[in-house]
């Protein structure tokens, strides 16, 4: 069905059209927020919030990007904001644990490449991490990333390049070993 027709039906209050729109985009949205969050409950929360906001703001959709890209933009924004809050909360918890002598989390065994890489990706700044995940993990183009994150494709390329360089530096000793 034509996307514009579907949007018009949603705006007219057609509940079945809302479900159709959701079914058409939920897999992509969920997959993306899961990649960013790494947790099923958080991914569900972010995906749900993204669709609720998308339905509320559908009148603002101007068709400059594909509808799926527009919804992904909302989802990434919701996820990154949510993850920032969690990061701040965890930082406070770690401070408290440190103060009372808890929190010995040092790994005993040498981690494998996947684990080291995952840790290194976690350590990237939010913007770099989003670009890296979308491009190198999920296969988005720089044009799509630009539309989702509201940046120029050139900025996306530059951020990806810096993210990769940072990951290579972090994993350099592993590569040598």
């Amino acid at each position, binding site marked *: 069905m034509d996307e514009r027709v579907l949007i018009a039906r949603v705006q*007219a209050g057609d509940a079945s059209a809302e479900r159709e729109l959701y079914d058409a985009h939920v897999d992509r949205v969920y997959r993306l927020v899961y990649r960013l*969050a790494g947790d099923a409950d958080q*991914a*569900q929360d972010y995906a749900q919030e993204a*669709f609720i906001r998308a339905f509320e703001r559908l009148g603002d959709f101007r068709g400059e990007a594909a509808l799926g890209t527009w919804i992904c933009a909302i989802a990434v924004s919701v996820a990154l904001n949510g993850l920032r809050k969690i990061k701040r909360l965890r930082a406070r918890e770690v401070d408290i644990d440190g103060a009372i002598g808890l929190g010995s989390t040092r790994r005993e065994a040498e981690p494998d490449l*996947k684990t080291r890489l995952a840790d290194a990706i976690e350590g990237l700044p939010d913007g770099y991490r989003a670009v890296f995940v979308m491009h190198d*993990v999920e*296969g988005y183009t720089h044009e799509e990333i630009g539309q989702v994150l509201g940046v120029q494709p050139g900025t996306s390329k530059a951020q990806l390049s810096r993210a990769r360089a940072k990951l290579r530096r972090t994993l350099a000793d592993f590569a040598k070993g």
Partner: protein
Amino acid sequence: MIDDDDPLEPELREAARAYHEPPGEPPRDRMWQAIAGRRAADRLRRERGSRRWLVAWAAGIAAVLAIGVGIGRLTVRPPAPSEPTQAAPVAGAPRREDLTAYRVAAAEHLGQAEVFLTLFRASVHRDAQERLASSTARHLLATNRLLLDSPASGDPRLRLLLQDLELVLAQIAQLNPARGDEDLQLIREGLDDGVLVRLRAAVPAGTVVTPRQGAL
């Protein structure tokens, strides 16, 4: 699909694909239930909010009318005792001049409402227009209420039309551009249900719509 001139090394690329890999299918139905529940709750909250707003509006208008009636009673002089009392009208029944003034005022009000609603219907898609419309609708709403409350409003058909008009004007007066097309759709339905057609039928051809002062 990927446009790249500095690709990751193959083993890193392979490891990256495993980063936060979703385990199986997304819980589509469970998420949908949560979304539909939240949407329904939000809708209900908005409806309750707009009803509260309408009640507040009605209370405000009632207060203004009460003050107006009070001022009117204080400023109107009682008839001199020497005037003949034989021709005094029956208590509560409007005099012929009052009825004529009422009909003129009502016709002019309906004419203004017709012009306003016609313009509104044709230009609802601009935010600034909606703000202007809300302000005009509030003025018309106040006059509409005065006409409904007037002792001269004896014509049941006219009263019914004024009541339906009041509903449409109240909806426009509280129109919120942030809510998008939902409110506008309700108003359009109200207009399409016949308010505009009945208004046109009620306004005599050739009625001059001009600003009015103290006709009531």
